[in-house]
């Protein structure tokens, strides 16, 4: 049987179509198979990468916490060195830290800054490392010359810390420098007055004095609460920032709670 020319052409056309069709089917099959492979592998990679990312993120977080805890402990220890030489207990710096935090918080200072002050305020007396033992631990009152030497600890502390660019130590430098300034301008070393005294200085001044009066020291017994409160009220606007005194009495129970929690043991 011989095919007519048109039939031959038609068959040829069908053959070509079949070839093209098969080719397209092959390509589609390949693409579909590839596609699911691509997605499967991609999901696998994504899962792996994200897991690794989360793990690293957690490591960084842990490390950060470790650094902060270490920093906190080093600062407390450093502060305690200054206090230890003057026979204070380590609890003094811890209480001052908590008091300064509360005063800062109720003054409306941002949480992060309150935390910074809490960590820095234990260094307020660091300059005392440079004060001779005979003066630092003298039982009884210091004479005028001795007191002049003693007062240098504020300036010395400032000079020790002032060159740091770290926010924590910069804060500590302010605290060390200004914690003996008085609101009425009669404090030292600069005789600053009112708002000239940095809020960190004003806060630490109150925290330090409240704690000093509450506790026994080499040269004195602790004061009774009524006497302490009377003194603080009397010094409202004199030694202390009146706003901080108001805050202190508005939240007295919280300050007393800290004092009880971090009580000295003799």
């Amino acid at each position, binding site marked *: 049987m011989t095919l007519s020319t048109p039939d031959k052409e038609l068959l040829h056309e069908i053959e070509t179509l079949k070839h093209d069709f098969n080719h397209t089917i092959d390509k589609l099959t390949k693409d579909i198979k*590839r596609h699911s492979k691509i997605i499967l592998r991609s999901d696998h990679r994504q899962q792996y990468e994200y897991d690794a990312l989360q793990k690293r993120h957690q490591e960084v977080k842990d490390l950060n916490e470790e650094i902060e805890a270490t920093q906190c402990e080093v600062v407390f220890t450093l502060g305690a060195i200054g206090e230890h030489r003057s026979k204070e207990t380590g609890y003094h710096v811890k209480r001052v830290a908590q008091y300064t935090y509360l005063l800062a918080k109720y003054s409306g200072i941002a949480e992060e800054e309150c935390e910074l002050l809490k960590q820095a305020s234990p260094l307020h007396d660091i300059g005392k490392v440079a004060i001779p033992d005979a003066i630092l631990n003298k039982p009884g009152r210091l004479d005028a010359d001795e007191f002049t030497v003693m007062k240098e600890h504020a300036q010395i502390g400032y000079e020790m810390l002032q060159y740091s660019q770290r926010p924590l130590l910069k804060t500590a430098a302010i605290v060390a420098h200004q914690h003996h300034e008085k609101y009425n301008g009669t404090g030292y070393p600069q005789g600053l007055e009112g708002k000239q005294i940095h809020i960190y200085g004003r806060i630490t001044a109150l925290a330090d004095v409240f704690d000093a009066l509450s506790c026994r020291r080499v040269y004195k017994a602790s004061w009774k609460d009524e006497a302490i409160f009377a003194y603080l009220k009397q010094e409202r606007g004199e030694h202390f920032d009146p706003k901080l005194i108001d805050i202190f009495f508005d939240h007295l129970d919280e300050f007393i709670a800290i004092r009880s929690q971090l009580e000295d043991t003799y």
Partner: protein
Amino acid sequence: MDNFIAEGTQHTPNISMNASTGVISMSGQSYPENTFEFYQPVMAWLLDFFASTPQTDIEVNMEIIYFNSGSSKFFFDFFDIFDAEKNNYKITINWIYNPENTRALEAGEDFIEDFVNLSINLVTTK
């Protein structure tokens, strides 16, 4: 014809395609925002390259540490072009991976599986 050079970014690899030496290299990571758009000029260059009937062997070095699914699709399409030209040129593809990066190794194995007639080598970085 001109060579093709693209500096790597955070999302895209370094790309270097040399028309006279026939060396084509990609290294880095690949997860562009629009993968298709990003690789379009790369595909176009490669098609032009083959259209210019180069007188050289071809060496492809791929060192991709991380890539998205779009890039994966691109690699398959990219290799399809070499696959179509495999009888006309001596083409060597090196899929370079860090031994610790098992995902990159798996990808290389997938390409080998798919392109049985292409010469794809799995090469570890030192």
